[in-house]
């Protein structure tokens, strides 16, 4: 069997397994409520924050940018925490990680596959959050006005960055004992603050703005906003053309791909060397 076939099969099987783990604990109706309640609650919190204090409430010109940023960030949180959590789940909850390693499996693509279920659920959540925004809150997203080329290109590159970042965190989780539970959440929380998800990066203090400009998701959200709303939220990023934004994203995707592969393989080697693949911390 070629390496490519093994990688593809591992990815496909892991995607199916991830979907079963995510969804088969209940009936489809309860699962739909579960999948949507969390992201919709987050969007409605933002709505109330604006309704209470912003000039014009949800008609404030900043609100659509914030709403769209928050909606699409669902992907980042889900994929980053999902892939790193898959390591903990398999290693400590189901205690199957050792079997995954002893089977003819490509663990790199296996973990990528485990993130697919999260991405699928996130797609539904993002779609419904946008529909709620467009219909109930008039955030100005219409199917006719969307720049589909920019949106599809941004989503493709953004997904690559997210998936590779997830693998990187998964690798780090392999060599962590009692802190791996926090890794995904901590990184997703920091990115939520620093990528200008719910406010323009311009309002961050200068040192944090510099950090924000080094994070790929800042550019990804800028591209998504431009594609859906016709313009970005940030004056700082406004000087960059669409092509420049996509170039940065493409570079970030390639860089993250190489970095995640190297860190994952290094962590994997250390985990095997130190006997951590079947570690049980009784979390």
């Amino acid at each position, binding site marked *: 069997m070629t390496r490519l076939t093994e990688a593809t099969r591992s990815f496909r099987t892991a995607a199916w397994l991830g979907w079963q783990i995510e969804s088969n604990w209940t009936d489809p109706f309860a699962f739909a409520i579960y999948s949507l309640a969390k*992201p919709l*609650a987050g969007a409605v919190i933002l709505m109330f924050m604006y309704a209470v*204090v912003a000039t014009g409430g949800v008609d404030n010109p900043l609100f659509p940018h914030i709403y769209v940023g928050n909606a699409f960030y669902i992907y980042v949180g889900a994929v980053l925490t999902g892939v790193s959590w898959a390591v903990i789940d398999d290693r400590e909850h189901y205690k199957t990680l050792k079997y995954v390693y002893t089977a003819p499996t490509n663990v790199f693509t296996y973990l990528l596959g485990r993130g697919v279920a999260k991405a699928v659920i996130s797609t539904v959540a993002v779609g419904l959050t946008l529909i709620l925004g467009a219909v109930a809150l008039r955030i100005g997203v219409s199917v006719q006005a969307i720049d589909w080329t920019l949106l599809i290109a941004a989503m493709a590159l953004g997904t690559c960055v997210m998936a590779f970042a997830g693998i990187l965190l998964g690798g780090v989780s392999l060599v962590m004992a009692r802190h791996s539970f*926090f890794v995904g959440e901590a990184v997703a929380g920091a990115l939520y603050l620093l990528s200008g998800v719910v*406010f323009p990066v311009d309002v961050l203090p200068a040192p944090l703005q510099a950090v924000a400009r080094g994070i790929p998701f800042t550019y990804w959200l800028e591209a998504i906003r431009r594609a859906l709303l016709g313009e970005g939220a940030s004056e700082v990023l406004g000087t960059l053309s669409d092509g420049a934004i996509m170039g940065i994203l493409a570079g970030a995707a390639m860089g993250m791909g190489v970095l995640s592969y190297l860190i994952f393989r290094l962590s994997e080697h250390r985990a095997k060397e130190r006997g951590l693949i079947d570690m049980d911390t009784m979390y």
Partner: protein
Amino acid sequence: MFLRTVVGRAYPRMVGLQRERSWLVFDVLLPLLQVSAFVFIYRAVEAPPEFTGFVVLGGAMTAYWMNVLWNMASQLYWEKETGNLEIFMVAPTSRMAILLGMALGGMVATTVRAAAVLTLGILLFGVEIALTDAPALVGVFFLTLIALYGMGMLLSSLYLLFGREAWHMSNLLQEPVYLLSGLYFPVRSLGAWAAAGASLIPMTLGLDAMRQLLFPAMTEFAFLPVRYELAILAALSVVFVAGARRALSYMEEVARRQGRLTVRGQ
């Protein structure tokens, strides 16, 4: 025996805080990141500075809700998964004492985290507090905790029947409760009926009262006068603790009959 059980179950929670001190960093850092993001939202729309205080206070209270969800409500599920639940069941003690010990230990440990979030938030964002009635604030705070952990004890008994769905249920209850209890905005803006319904969650009225007592300039955003909120919180405390007692014995019986007390990995 009741008291010894309470102390015995509270002890590991308090000692656990000392054993893995690095967790404190994450427990403080994670809510603080969320708080910072919401502070910058209010700054972006030039909201009055008191709203920063609202968010910081709400962020500190999230620590309690997280503790109630993951370390109270879900606890008996974790105990089942790790094999401790059957030991609890054969021990010659009250199950309520075990829940009470979990609640007391959780309260103490979480207070350290909440205080750290509050202090750092106040220092980082320059929150100005104008405390008007310290005894009332202490009363509101403790009644909120009693009612909240009473709710946690009640949920804990309901979770006794859950398998894998316990994990998802806790996940499900996280953000919607942030919304309903007005952790990051005044609950009054939900509208009178929705806010009244949300008042079943003790944090809703507790936060509203604490905000009135700490930021008196913003009383226009208050939902109910503090004295009413105190009375409702006292009533909720009694209802939740009494409800937990009844629910625990009922759910334990159901779980025994259905053979769910020792089933793992569902």
